């Protein structure tokens, strides 16, 4: 079984972004970029399925500027076999990414697609579901466990009241939640090995996909700030404030 994993290059989760003074977006010049944490979990899951003998090949895909090759190298170092970069400097919205991925899934004939449930920059939580829809295949989103047997994936999902389990006929799309696995640390020998692995570069036009954005960002602003609070000396003072000032208890 071939697995296709999609990874996104995003501002590192430890960076607190700043809104640009002209309100055109957030300032991402000279900030640390990393693989979206949910996508790292996706790569790890694919590698574990390969180690368990379920998967035979892992193709990792990213879409964006040429620097995404660094993100792909990280995925190759975790254990993906080869990589494809859909290179573009244009803004990519989830629907466009889903269309690019669909074109590659059609070409690669992958049986399982694993994506992060959400990218921590635009917080959209759409691409996996859109990909499944475009491919007309089932989806197991927010997965905390994936078991593959006899052409079916049993996917346990994190839902609002707890967990639920679905049985999906492959091919299917899985999106990862935090508890699916803990990605391994990349070792130096694996980084060296990853340097020899192939990254194919294609353009959106090569895949016949129109990536023009559908949503126009009019402005980006700082969220309203909370006014500064007060420190209380002890529990009695806290209760007094909650009862008489905030009147919430």
């Amino acid at each position, binding site marked *: 079984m071939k697995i296709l994993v999609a990874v996104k290059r995003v501002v590192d*989760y430890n960076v*607190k*972004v700043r*809104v640009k003074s002209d309100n055109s977006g*957030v300032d991402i010049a000279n900030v640390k970029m990393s693989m979206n944490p*949910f996508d790292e979990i996706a790569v790890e899951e694919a590698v574990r399925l390969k180690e368990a003998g379920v998967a035979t090949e892992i193709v990792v895909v990213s879409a964006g500027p040429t620097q995404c090759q660094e993100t792909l190298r990280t995925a190759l170092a975790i254990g993906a076999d080869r990589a494809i970069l859909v290179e573009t400097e244009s803004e990519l919205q*989830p*629907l466009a990414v889903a269309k690019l991925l669909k074109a590659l899934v059609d070409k690669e004939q992958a049986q399982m697609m694993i994506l992060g*449930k*959400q990218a921590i*920059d*635009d*917080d959209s*939580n*759409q*691409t996996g*579901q*859109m990909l*499944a*829809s*475009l491919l007309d*295949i*089932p*989806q197991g*989103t*927010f997965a*905390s466990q994936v078991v593959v047997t006899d052409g079916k994936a049993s996917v346990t999902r994190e*839902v*609002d*009241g*707890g*967990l*639920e*389990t*679905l*049985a*999906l*006929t492959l091919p299917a799309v899985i999106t990862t*939640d*935090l*508890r699916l696995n803990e990605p391994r640390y990349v070792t130096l020998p694996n980084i060296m090995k990853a340097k020899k692995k192939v990254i194919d570069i294609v353009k959106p036009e090569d895949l016949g996909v129109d990536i023009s954005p*559908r*949503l*126009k*960002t009019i*402005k*980006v*602003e*700082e*969220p309203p700030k*909370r006014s500064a*609070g*007060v*420190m209380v000396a002890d*529990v009695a003072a806290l*209760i007094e*404030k909650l009862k008489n000032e*905030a009147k*919430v*208890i």
Partner: protein
Amino acid sequence: MAALVIAEHDNLSLKAATLNAVAAALQCSPEVDILVAGNQSDAAAQAAAQIAGVSKVIQIDAPNLADQLAEPLAAQILALASSYTHVLAPATANGKNVLPRVAAKLDVAQLSDVTKIVSPDTFERPIYAGNAIATVQSSDPIKIITVRTTGFDPVSAAGGSAAIEKHAVAADAGKSAFVGRELTKSDRPELTAAKIIVSGGRGLGSGEKYQELIAPLADKLGAALGASRAAVDAGYVPNDYQVGQTGKIVAPQLYVAVGISGAIQHLAGMKDSKVIVAINKDPEAPIFSVADYGLVADLFTAVPELTKALG
């Protein structure tokens, strides 16, 4: 043209988040219909008909809709979507699961986690864990929207008298099946609907301490239980307790954060709470920057003292 809200329900009752989505829908269009797709969902459909401001309830019953699987549910929404300018669902696990499927098939963008309707084609939504608010405009003929419930005051669950129209079920390929569900059992209020939330973090040190300290305080306050990602990852509590960027987004009247340092991902999930209390032994903890009342103290003595004093 009208807006369609996808009801969040379990066939027997409507989830409160539906009321916030209806509120958002009414800001997009004066005419709002609601879809109750389920199995033996008469009770939920009747509850939907009572919602203030709803024009019509569309009820679709079929066995494969019982568990809100994305594939058959998306097929029902798609069969209806062309009659609407807006399709909205609360940004719950279900809403997030199904609506992008609908958007992709309609070849339109989705607007996720919308917090404000600026105009029928322009919306505000948080990005970067709520560290920035984007105003985005859609030129697509149908706007597909998931509604961040904390951004909209709910409409009244009573006072409406919408007609219930039963529709035939649209076909589905049947490639997904529901196997089972393990819901966290609790007599406490639901996290996203609670007026008061007590949340515990890694400062508690163990699941036993969480139960020993946080649960009694929550009981005294009639509060729901929440947790930071760190506490969930450490196995203190189940995953559905998680408050934060990738967990639940809450905005109760009172949020009590105990032993939570306040990573930006956690703050993203609770900083719209009306009153925030932080109890932490580290005076430098970022949680204090959003707290209305901060108490620097050892939680192992302060929390029992607080619980006792609330007698």
